[in-house]
């Protein structure tokens, strides 16, 4: 073979992959270039080592510590700790050092363990053996030693060790099959092609002798003798070779430069609204803390201005203290006050919140209501940071295919030349009667017609990418319905499988692709063989259809079926070769490849002869309508974003009750914009909507009353891009605002003909609109990933189109219907729980620290602590930590069933209702009040008197202990008051932690602890308990502290009950809300299977306006002749029936 071929490699330009393409020259097999070529500049490439780990053994401690202290909270605690170490502060460094150390250590251990696992995985990957060719011989080496330019041999079922250029395979045609299951979850086999010039090199010796150079990169010199390559020649690391014995390839990207490694880049961190509120509250508390410290420092120096106060005779300073600079002293005092009050921002809150989120997310994965028996899949939680965000969703953006519908295609009918064919349904083997009865299967078509018909079926049977699999080792196999053959069709497109299966039922069975021949079994049980010309593509084209077929396609689309038109063109040998050449030229073009390909297709796809149309049904997912209805009742706006055509999508929307019979549809489509200007359309629509909302009365807020007019908006991708496009005069936001205004008034929005990126754009538009609503995107396919990543919460449906969406999502659910429980129950609970957790934490620390602040006024601002060190340290760690943690895991303010039954309850927590500033201020004031009660209660108790019957006097530690005891009881009982769901666990932790406090105090004060250098707590607690008035005071002060909260609760429940409280009150007699609010339920037949109720209903309702509008959208061009010319294939991608695909039969 010719050994000095030069190959130029250039990659297809994909959005977002610019960083992948660099310019490089690779000498295959490390052979020197032939003399005369340009100077050989050895390039350095990384070896094939994959490093996904973050740390090494040596840098773990510094790097991890650095990362941890980059968090503001940790850094704050570190500073406090250091201040305590450096200056003389009232509390020992242990009180803040111990919790911080604990948190840091636990986090470090967790991260270290995760990194160790990554190291292990990396090592396993880097050390697995790889075969490659050296000097014409097969050598085994470790994967990490692979270099760019090495020639690699991969056997069947092996994974590619790096990104390879496919040189040759043992198959004669130079193809191989690959599955990318581990990359994107798609289990279907994809065919890749060897480089044309090298596909003949079958043996090691041949390959070893190959002289070739690969140039890659956008800046590559455009030498004509370079052989261009495309993505079909590229085998990606991580994919697996299938159905091919072995292949040879040359490594072009290794190690961290492979596409897989580049995709490791982590997703951006999403933060929940609760977290944002929490940070805002933290800042408030930080301000409170600083102002407290400042006030005390200033007061201290004012108070001390009299020397007998600063230094009375009984309390002299040391010489060095006297010498110290005044400002330095003041600053130290300020820091000391900061340290004294720093507990107001507790370390433990972060730990508790993290633990609550982590542990709480298990309840989602455990939930058996969300477990799908069929697929054996349960919900997945990919991040636990967003649990509570599920309770805050205001907008849901949902994909249609595979999310609302099952993506389980069924061939419904085909229409050939005015005859409608319905394939046998397997279950009964009978022809289903046509509902409208236009045409039954024609028993005696003309000879010409029969020819056409057979051509049509053959076309369907041959033009696809379906593969036949004999065993069912791939997931999602679809058994051939025909009992005789045990073959299974697999394809990445469920439509194609449905078509092939449908045609099978009509008599033509696709058998296999064998040696470039496609075999099929025709009606007479003869096997026909066709040459397989690797010339296939899918395109969405518009064409103009004959009257009958058009009507039929339209009708089917309205019914929510997916339609496809089939046309053909007869080619003679020369024409075929011409086409091949044209396509090849376009495919290898280095610039504007996409555009050139499009042009080539345009040129080929003219003068097609229409054969007929097919209709494939995609059934609605189980309970999709019910779910959407519930979500809408919960005040969530549901938007459907789909790539489908408008009619199909709208029909689905009707079927799933997104649009109701009284929904007035507003259209914002290209068609309309062409008639009027965008400006006019937008203003007209907004006028309609605003007029309506002006007359909207308040009691219609629920949106449930039947006579209320609600609007649905339909917009298509082209119109959207017009709106989004910044105008020349720069006033881009104008249209956007108007559009958002319209959207806000619509209960449902349907966006059809959306590109994946546009989906994300829409989400972004809403996300950053002025109310900053919480958005949720749900989808199942790779085309939904962008919006899943963009939305506040991304939910993947574990669907048929691979697991890409589930993988990139925050949560994955098996079915769309599980969204209901996810949001209405879990989301609601998590939100209630975490908001209580956050508020309660701040509350209990106000209670904790404010008495300390007050005490400064009575101890000469000397930073004397009120509580003992042990109490200071343990208050947040053990005395009050478990009850709130368990509360935040277990609380159910209302039953699960009630929440599911009554979605309107979701509105009670909408808009971060429990973390508004008003609520926060209430909690803070409650904390302040309680703190005042604790402190002054104890103050008046101790003032000038003795409280024991033996006349002995208590000291300052008893005073502090009394305050502390009252406080621990109050904050724990406050939580008990808030608990609505008392399981044995709640009882255990609430009473248990009170008991623990008492037992601890008895022990702490009951023994002389040898390791302490002070014994100030000795017998303090016991002495306090021996005093009757102390008991009475505890009871009294706890009661006073709780009284306002009880009063507020009772009065609010009585006077201004929220919906939740109403339901709680009336829980004994549950009302039948469902029937009350769903007048439509009875109109709908339960399923959406044989006949399409929504369509029937849709057309039979007297919404003439809407219907007319619909009619107006459909093509009104004159009925064309079949011998179409270029005129009939319009180039604008939005005319007539843009969803149809034309398949070219050659």
């Amino acid at each position, binding site marked *: 073979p010719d050994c000095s071929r030069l190959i130029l490699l250039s990659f297809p330009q994909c959005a977002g992959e610019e960083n992948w393409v660099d310019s490089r020259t690779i000498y295959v097999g490390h052979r020197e270039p032939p003399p005369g070529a340009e100077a050989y500049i050895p390039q350095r490439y990384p070896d094939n080592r994959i490093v996904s780990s973050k740390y090494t053994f040596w840098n773990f401690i510094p790097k991890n510590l650095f990362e941890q202290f980059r968090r503001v909270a940790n850094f704050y605690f570190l500073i406090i700790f250091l201040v305590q170490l450096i200056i003389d502060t*009232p509390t020992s460094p242990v009180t803040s050092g111990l919790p911080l150390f604990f948190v840091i250590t636990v986090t470090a251990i967790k991260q270290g363990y995760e990194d160790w696992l990554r190291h292990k995985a990396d090592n396993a990957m880097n050390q697995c053996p790889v075969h490659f060719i050296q000097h014409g011989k097969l050598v085994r080496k470790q994967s990490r030693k692979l270099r760019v330019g090495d020639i690699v041999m991969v056997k069947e079922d092996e994974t590619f060790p790096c990104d390879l250029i496919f040189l040759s395979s043992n198959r004669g045609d130079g193809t191989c099959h690959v599955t990318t299951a581990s990359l994107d979850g798609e289990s279907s086999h994809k065919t890749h092609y060897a480089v044309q010039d090298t596909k003949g090199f079958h043996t090691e010796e041949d390959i070893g002798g190959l002289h070739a150079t690969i140039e890659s990169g956008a800046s590559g010199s455009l030498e004509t003798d370079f052989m261009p390559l495309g993505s079909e020649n590229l085998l990606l690391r991580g994919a697996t070779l299938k159905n091919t014995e072995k292949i040879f390839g040359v490594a072009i990207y290794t190690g961290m430069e492979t596409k897989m490694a580049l995709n490791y880049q982590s997703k951006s961190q999403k933060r929940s609204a609760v977290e944002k509120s929490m940070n805002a509250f933290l800042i408030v508390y930080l301000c409170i803390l600083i102002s407290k410290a400042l006030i005390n420092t200033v007061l201290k120096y004012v108070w001390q201005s009299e020397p*007998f106060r600063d230094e*009375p*005779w*009984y*309390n002299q*300073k*040391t*010489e060095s203290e006297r010498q110290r600079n005044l400002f330095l002293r003041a600053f130290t005092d300020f820091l000391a006050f900061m340290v004294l009050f720093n507990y107001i921002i507790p370390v433990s809150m972060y730990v508790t919140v993290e633990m609550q989120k982590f542990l709480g997310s*298990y309840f989602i*994965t*455990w939930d*058996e209501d969300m*477990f799908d*028996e069929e697929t*054996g*899949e*349960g919900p997945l939680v990919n991040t636990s940071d967003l649990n509570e965000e599920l309770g805050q969703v205001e907008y849901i953006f949902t994909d249609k295919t595979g999310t609302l519908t099952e993506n389980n295609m069924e061939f419904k009918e085909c229409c050939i030349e005015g005859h409608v064919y319905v394939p046998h349904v397997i279950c009964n083997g009978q022809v289903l009667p046509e509902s409208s009865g236009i045409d039954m299967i024609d028993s005696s078509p003309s000879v010409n017609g029969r020819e056409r018909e057979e051509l049509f079926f053959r076309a369907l049977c041959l033009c696809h990418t379906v593969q036949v699999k004999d065993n069912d080792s791939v997931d999602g196999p679809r058994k051939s319905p025909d009992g005789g053959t045990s073959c299974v069709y697999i394809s990445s497109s469920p439509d194609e499988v449905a078509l092939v299966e449908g045609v099978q039922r009509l008599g033509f069975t696709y058998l296999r692709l064998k040696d470039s021949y496609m075999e099929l079994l025709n009606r007479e049980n003869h096997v026909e063989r066709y040459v397989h010309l690797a010339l296939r593509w899918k395109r969405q084209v518009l064409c103009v259809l004959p009257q009958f077929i058009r009507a039929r396609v339209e009708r089917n689309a309205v019914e929510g079926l997916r339609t496809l038109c089939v046309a053909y063109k007869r080619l003679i040998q020369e024409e075929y070769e011409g086409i091949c050449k044209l396509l090849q030229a376009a495919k290898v073009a280095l610039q504007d490849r996409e555009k050139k390909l499009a042009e080539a297709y345009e040129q080929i796809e003219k003068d097609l002869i229409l054969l007929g149309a097919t209709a494939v049904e995609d059934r609605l997912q189980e309970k999709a309508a019910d779910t959407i209805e519930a979500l809408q009742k919960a005040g969530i706006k549901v938007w459907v974003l789909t790539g489908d055509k408008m009619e199909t999508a709208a029909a689905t929307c009707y079927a799933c009750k997104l649009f109701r019979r009284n929904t007035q549809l507003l259209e914002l489509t290209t068609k309309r914009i062409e008639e009027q200007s965008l400006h006019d359309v937008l203003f007209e629509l907004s006028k309609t909507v605003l007029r309506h909302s002006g007359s909207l009365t308040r009691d219609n807020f629920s949106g449930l009353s039947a006579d209320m007019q609600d609007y649905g908006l339909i917009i298509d991708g082209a119109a959207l891009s017009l709106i989004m496009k910044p105008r020349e005069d720069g006033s881009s936001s104008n249209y956007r605002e108007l559009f958002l205004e319209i959207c806000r008034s619509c209960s449902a929005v349907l966006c059809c003909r959306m590109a994946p990126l546009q989906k994300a754009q829409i989400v972004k538009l809403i996300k950053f609109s002025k109310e900053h609503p919480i958005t949720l995107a749900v989808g199942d396919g790779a085309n939904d990933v962008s919006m899943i990543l963009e939305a506040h919460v991304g939910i993947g449906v574990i669907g048929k189109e691979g697991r890409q969406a589930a993988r990139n999502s925050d949560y994955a659910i098996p079915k769309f219907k599980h969204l209901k429980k996810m949001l209405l129950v879990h989301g609601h609970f998590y939100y209630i729980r975490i908001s209580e957790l956050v508020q309660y934490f701040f509350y209990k620390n106000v209670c904790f620290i404010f008495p300390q602040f007050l005490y400064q006024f*009575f*101890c000469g601002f*000397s930073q*004397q602590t009120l509580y003992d060190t042990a109490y200071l340290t343990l208050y947040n760690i053990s005395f009050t930590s478990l009850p709130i943690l368990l509360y935040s895991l277990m609380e*159910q303010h209302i039953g699960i069933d009630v929440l599911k039954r009554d979605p309107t309850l979701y509105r009670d927590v909408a808009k971060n209702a429990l973390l508004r500033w008003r609520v926060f201020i209430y909690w803070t004031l409650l904390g302040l009040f309680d703190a005042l009660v604790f402190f002054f209660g104890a*103050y*008046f*108790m*101790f*003032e*000038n*008197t*003795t409280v024991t*019957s033996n*006349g*002995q*006097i*208590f000291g*300052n530690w*008893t005073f502090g202990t009394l305050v502390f005891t009252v406080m621990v009881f109050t904050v724990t009982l406050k939580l008990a*008051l808030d608990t609505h769901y*008392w*399981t044995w*666990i709640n009882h255990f932790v609430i009473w248990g932690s009170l008991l623990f406090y008492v037992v601890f105090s008895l022990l702490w004060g009951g023994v*002389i602890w040898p390791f302490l250098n*002070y*014994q100030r707590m*000795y017998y303090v607690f016991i*002495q306090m308990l021996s005093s*009757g008035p102390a008991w*009475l005071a505890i009871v*009294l002060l706890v*009661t*006073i502290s709780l*009284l306002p909260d*009880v009063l507020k*609760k*009772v*009065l609010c*429940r*009585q*006077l201004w009950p929220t919906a939740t409280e109403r339901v709680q009150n009336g829980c004994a007699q549950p009302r039948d809300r469902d029937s009350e609010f769903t007048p439509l339920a009875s109109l709908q037949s339960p399923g959406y299977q044989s006949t399409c109720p929504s369509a029937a209903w849709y057309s039979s309702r007297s919404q003439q306006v809407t219907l007319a509008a619909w009619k107006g959208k459909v093509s009104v061009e004159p009925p064309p002749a079949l011998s179409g010319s270029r005129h009939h294939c319009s180039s604008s991608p939005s005319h007539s029936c843009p969803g149809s695909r034309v398949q070219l039969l050659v």
Partner: protein
Amino acid sequence: MTWSATARGAHQPDNTAFTQQRLPAWQPLLSASIALPLFFCAGLAFIGLGLGLYYSSNGIKELEYDYTGDSGTGNCSVCAAAGQGRAPPPPCSCAWYFSLPELFQGPVYLYYELTNFYQNNRRYSVSRDDAQLSGLPSALRHPVNECAPYQFSAAGLPIAPCGAIANSLFNDSFSLWHQRLPGGLYVEVPLDRSGIAWWTDYHVKFRNPPLVNGSLALAFQGTAPPPNWRRPVYELSPDPNNTGFINQDFVVWMRTAALPTFRKLYARIRQGNYSAGLPRGAYRVNITYNYPVRAFGGHKLLIFSSISWMGGKNPFLGIAYLVVGSLCILTGFVMLIVYIRYQDQDDDYEE
């Protein structure tokens, strides 16, 4: 098929009440119908308790006398004036005369009270060495740094007991004399100076260092008394069980007070004829005036107080109970009105 069955089993969540969040639970509601009786009951109970506390507090008698010696307030002003600006102030004594028209119901306790004295100042309250006070010989020689500037004497000897608290030990002393008949002789009323500190303090927490050759004085050899003290610690009392660190006056003083105005127990009167209380008649308290308080604007008071089960006179608890109890009842009524009126509305709404 078996493979998929096991896979399903592995993925299937455990169907327990806990994982499904369906643990049996008590679901109380704080509704008006529950809160109303609660408020009334609590209100009544509190008022009852409050009345009891109030009367029991009112039954306690207190007699106090400010002997600081501000000019024109009795004969202690002489001592106060004499001590002005002199450190240490010279020994001085004065007296307080009072008469009881009726029996001062016992048992009677004698307290002294200081005002404006910040025992809770942090620099002051940390200035002690608990290890030294627990009798540890090493700590006796090496007091902790917190004791500075009362850590070492000018001669460099370790101070025992070290620290500001010990140094500022209250050193006024009192004796009570009773004149049964007008013009008669004053008879000394026995003051019981024991049992004024916590039992655990002077039996466990405070210990003298081990005796050297049976002598406490030798045990303290090599240490200096606090600068303000006139006597070393081992001579605080002639009673060997009440001297040194376990001297009860000292122990009482070492329990620092919570607030700048504080009382400390000086003695109990419970012996002989006085166990039932102080009979009527004229009394004299002889005061040894040593302790300077005017320098920091403080006052010294002497208090006779009787004690009940709830301790000394403290009307706060009783009044607070009464107020809270009445508040409970009041809010109970308000809520009752709201409840009844709202209930009607609610019924209308339901219809």
